[in-house]
């Protein structure tokens, strides 16, 4: 996919962005001064909520999500010396994601490669050829209740689900999602569009 129209990134902490917001000179030096657990407190602990929510969406279970986050935090701690800077939230979330998938492979092998996921990857290459002018009005989904919405998201194939959750629930930008899910930005874009379409369709068609 040849899409490069994205706005230039000027987020505060990005290395290629202008040093606009960092009032502090020497943040990088301060990181060097810290011992591992101080680094951990600074880089990981602020994002435990996000980590937990992502794990919960991926494992579909609160207790499992706690285990995953705890395991992921340990991995993050062991890897903290290699943390090269950049976005700590995306970094932690990518560890959570990988931990969640290994956990699923081990404990729920059936969940990990479902037919639906294969179909999802297949579809990803397909085109948006159903430009359906006959789709119901968007406002129809406004009355959907929380439970149905939650279930519809939970039923999305994992690659779509994680992308949608990171964008529309957690508010990450495309670059952070690309980093967290370890795919190119073009893939983030197509997964997101597809996830939203599927979700909208499900919500419009399934009536309880």
């Amino acid at each position, binding site marked *: *996919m040849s*899409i490069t*129209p*994205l*706005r*230039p990134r*000027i987020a*505060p902490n990005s290395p290629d962005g*202008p040093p*606009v*917001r*960092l*009032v*502090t000179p020497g*943040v990088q030096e*301060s*990181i060097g*001064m*810290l*011992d*591992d*657990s*101080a680094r951990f*407190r600074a880089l990981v*602990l602020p994002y*435990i909520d996000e980590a*937990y*929510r992502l794990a919960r969406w991926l494992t579909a279970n*609160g207790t499992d999500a*706690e285990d995953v*986050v705890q395991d992921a*935090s*340990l991995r993050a*701690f062991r890897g903290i010396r290699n943390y090269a800077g950049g976005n*700590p939230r995306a970094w932690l979330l990518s560890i959570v994601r990988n931990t969640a998938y290994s956990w699923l492979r081990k404990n729920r092998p059936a969940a990990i490669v479902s037919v639906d996921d294969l179909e999802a990857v297949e579809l990803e290459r397909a*085109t*948006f*050829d159903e430009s359906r*002018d006959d*789709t119901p009005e*968007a*406002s129809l*989904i*406004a009355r959907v*209740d*929380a439970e149905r*919405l939650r279930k519809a998201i939970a039923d999305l194939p994992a690659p779509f689900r994680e992308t949608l959750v990171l*964008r*529309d*629930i*957690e*508010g990450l*930008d*495309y670059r952070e999602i690309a980093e967290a899910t370890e795919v190119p930005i073009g893939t983030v874009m*197509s997964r*997101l*569009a597809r996830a*939203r*379409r599927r979700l*909208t369709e499900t919500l419009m068609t399934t009536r309880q």
Partner: protein
Amino acid sequence: MGQRGDHPFVIPEKKMSRSKSDDNSVLLVHAHLDGELDPANALSIAQQMRQEPALAAEAERVKELQKLIHERLPREAAPPGLRARIESSVSGTRRGPGNPSWRTLAASVALAAVIASGSTWFVVDFRHQPAQVAELLVSSHIRSLMAPQPVDVLSSDRHTVKPWFNGRISKSPRVIDLTKDDFRLIGGRVDVVGSVPVSTLVYRRTKHLISLTAVPAEDAPAFSGPQNIDGYNIVRWTENGVSYWAISDVEPKDLELFAQLFRTSQNEL
């Protein structure tokens, strides 16, 4: 068997309708709504959306979906004990040497503030220190003028700017269209005041930029006339628990006019 719709010379209907809104445009509509496009592409996709109902409908569906998610699925915090368990499991794994020096401690506090806020490391209780907030916001304004562009989302469309703040700060700001009064909205960015991310809208008046920052505050004074810091004028007022700070190098009377218009305008999203 071969005499079906997939005959090589019959163009399937679907393919034909596809040229209307090809895949790329669909993705760009999504990226546009997510505030990810650069200005030129944002402009061109906005135009395309006006011409192609399928794209406009797609945009409507996305917005409706985002609104639904935003309203129905509040982000829950991690269970209470989790953070503590993580901390103790980590400190049991490998312990740093002895007591940390004050330098390390200071650095860690500062770093935590920087990381948590994504930005400055001033720890200011802004409700009680308006002067410091003013200085912080003036520096943000100056830094934004030195940056390649003064905003993180560049758009004159308040319907684009407002949703861009969703997920970046907890409360979307009031965004008002003052184009007819010659204050043109050019975009928005997130600034940080005392580790709290806040929304800043940027308006243009002739060649001057106005940064308008909304800071949540309960007990700030209602309105104060223009002040001046480092040559920048500041006008501040509070409404509905939000304290607004307008900062610019335009004439004080223009800035006051701006504040007046912003407070009284009905052109809200």
